[in-house]
């Protein structure tokens, strides 16, 4: 088996601002991130599937002490960021940066609110990379 459903492939699609996962050809089950094996029935007959990127917020946090990568991206205690998990309309849940919310008034951010995928580009030239994010609809 030559597994094409890799993180490298997922990231390449992200760099094109596309949110891709996999679909079980037999029963239509959807996975995002992409999975080469359907975890429910072990099928390996999978194909790429493009998600619309629309969904609702399941959980979030405002991070004041970030990872090294997020600190490098300019976030700190005075400039905290929101990260969360969005349940896509097609079914799967995925983690992403949450933009366009008031990080200093987290009580205004509602679980269940509608969000749409957007992409944050970091780095220049060859090192340029896109990261998945969501913003309010």
């Amino acid at each position, binding site marked *: 088996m030559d597994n094409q459903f890799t*993180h490298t492939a997922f990231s390449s699609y992200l760099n094109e601002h596309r949110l891709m996962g996999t679909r079980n050809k037999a029963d239509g089950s959807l996975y995002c*991130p992409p999975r080469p094996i359907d*975890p429910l029935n072990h099928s390996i007959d999978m194909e790429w599937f493009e998600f619309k990127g629309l969904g609702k917020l*399941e*959980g*979030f*946090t*405002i*991070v*004041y*002490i*970030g*990872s*090294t*990568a*997020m*600190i490098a991206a300019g*976030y700190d*205690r005075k400039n*905290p*960021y929101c*990260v*969360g*998990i969005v349940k896509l309309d097609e079914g*799967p*849940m*995925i*983690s*992403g*940066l949450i933009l366009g919310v008031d990080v200093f008034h*987290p009580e205004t951010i*509602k*679980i*269940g609110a509608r969000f749409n995928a957007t992409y944050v580009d970091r780095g220049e030239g060859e090192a340029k990379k896109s*990261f*998945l994010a969501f913003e309010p609809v």
Partner: protein
Amino acid sequence: MSSKLARGVALVGAGMSKFGAFKGKSSRDLFVEAFVEMLESVDKGIDPKEINALYVGNYSSDLFEGQGHIAPIMASWTGLSPLPAVRVEDACASAGVAVREGILAVASGMYDVVVVGGVEKMTDLPIEKVTDTLATAADVQYEIPAGFTFPGFYAAMATSYMAAYGATPETFMKVGIKNHNNGAMNEKAQFGAKISTLMEARRQSAIKKGLPVPEWDSEMDFMHDDRANPIVAWPMRLYDCSPVSDGAAVVLLVSEDLAKKYTDHPIYVAGMGQASDGALHDRPVLNSIPSAKLAGEQAYRMAGITPQDIDFAEVHDCFTVAEVIASEDLGFFERGKGWIAAEEGVTSREGAKPINLSGGLKSKGHPVGASGVGQVVEVFKQLRGQAGPRQKPGQLRFGLTHNVGGTGQTCVVHIFERRD
């Protein structure tokens, strides 16, 4: 697959180092301390030559200390070479899983006497490197690039839990206060002091330095103070998070038929369970940990008991919200009711279902690869009436340990029983 062990296994010795930040002490130094205390705890004594194998829980000595392959080092430094020495890694559940592997090895009949320990040395690294090292227990391809940190994961679980059931950040603060009350009676705890004691210490420190003296009306007032208790990942604040710790814990497991050779009061393995799972976003909901529920159900089935039969539990409170969620996953309270039980004091020392009599990871400390064995040490002491000032009064029969790796990619549960 059987739901019973091929033969019974008993716990006959337990020891631990103090948990804390110990400059100048490495993993092996702490492990030796715990090992010696374990040997001394065996009522009728043990000759180390009777030991057949060593299992060591450890999360990431490679990144924390630049030392891989530590099981044989622990064997060598405790004088157990050339016995088989096995390292077990399942993130923060490493030690709980090591206990399980030790039990399975004895139950198989291959070994009669096994030492299981856990160790972690975390405080040599600067805090941002500790954060990055802990993050490797998550999915570094799909979770960490989004910006998640470990406090962040549990904070996201908290927002999901609050929205679903009505808990507030104050609920979690009360769990922290409760665990510090318990830890104040544990001489091995890293932050073994009540929140009120910590407040007074800060006031005295300000007076000494000639700085403005902070005033708080109550422990909850202190918990709401952004300066004293800063937000780490909203709604989790500093006092919602277990600390960065060094420490080791060691227990002695023997086959049931040999138990009385070592003590008249062995503690028996009544039940155990373990399950795995994918990333947090791969679960059906964020406010429950499926692997914990499965591990608990397996353990109850093996023990032939229900959650109501558990007299007390040591649960994995890496963050305060985790204790509330665990109390539901383990069936102590109905889904969505754990926060009410926490607020009403049901899980306090005096309550009907005491949780984390040791102070939990919050107050006792969380050397990640040692914590699971640390929990077993507490259950051993409580069931045998040896927990000193924090001893839960009354007849205790069943004690449960619940050890989580990551956000629930691993969970391992054990139920221990006193039969005499």
